[in-house]
């Protein structure tokens, strides 16, 4: 339990300090930014050592209000045994570390771990707390399905 709490708190605290540091630095140096940041959340016990969700970005720049402009957003969700369950990709978004929300008017791609369910759209809101995603425009999904199997 202690480990899980630590795992959950550290990224959040880090994100808060990161956002605060960005805000301060942004005032001094508008070009200040971070690269390759990651935030992870974990499963409930007894699987508290397994990563449930990982949010990462290649580049993050501070915005007013503690927000971050994230380039190359990547959200990964995993099964309890560590297999990739879902991947969300967006070239750009605004991320709010305090409430765990990422949004953009730009494009987004989503696919399941096996690649058989793929979604594209424009404009999205990702709510990290309940792992929900809303795509607001031009949603297009492709589902690969096996044809019926003949009887044995």
């Amino acid at each position, binding site marked *: 339990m202690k480990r899980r709490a630590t795992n959950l708190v550290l990224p959040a605290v880090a994100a808060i300090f990161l956002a605060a540091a960005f805000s301060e630095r942004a005032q001094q140096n508008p070009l200040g930014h971070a690269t390759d940041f990651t935030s992870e959340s974990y499963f409930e016990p007894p699987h508290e050592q397994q990563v449930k969700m990982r949010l990462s970005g290649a580049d993050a720049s501070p915005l007013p209000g503690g927000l971050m402009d994230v380039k190359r957003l990547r959200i990964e969700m995993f099964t309890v045994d560590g297999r990739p369950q879902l991947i969300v990709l967006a070239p750009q978004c605004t991320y709010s570390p305090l409430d765990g929300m990422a949004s953009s008017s730009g494009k987004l791609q989503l696919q*399941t771990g096996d690649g058989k369910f793929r979604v594209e759209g424009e404009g999205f809101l990702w709510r990290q707390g309940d792992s929900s995603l809303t795509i607001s425009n031009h949603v297009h999904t492709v589902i690969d399905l096996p044809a019926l199997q003949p009887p044995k």
Partner: protein
Amino acid sequence: MAQTNPVAPAPAMAATNVLAATNATAVATNIPAAKVATEISSDAADFDLNTRLAVYRGNVTVIDPQVKMTCERLVVDLPAAGAHLSHVVAETNVVIDFTDEKGQNYHVTSAKAVYDYQVEGSVTNETVTFTGSPKVETAQSTIESEPMIWDRTRNKFQFISPRMTSHEGLEKMTGTNNPSLKLF
């Protein structure tokens, strides 16, 4: 909606006054199983990744190699990795169009359609249950039934207390080659 084997027998309407069991063994073919793609387009969508639920909203269009469907709201249970799509609910102004291998066109309308897919042992159940004033139209006839079930495994419709309107003359209705007359 999910895909049936593209070489399955042409849909043939078969009416029953009592809902028949929909269990059926998958249609045997010599063609190896292949992947087929189903595409869904909509104005907007919500994905709950904890419950693995996708809700498509506004001008929803579903296209697979056999069927085109439109509706206003579509709820899809996202399949687990490697699994088949198992449960889909289409709501509001549901319209389905498809053509069987004999070239017969089918136009189905209803307020709601529920797709279910299950495999138990070697038995595959794949059905679409239409409710809310369902109606299926062909060149020969229009049939209304509440509910109406499309057994996609056997490619047959099942009706409860169906009401049929023929689009052809009475003399043709008594002909043995009219497939719609095999309904009753």
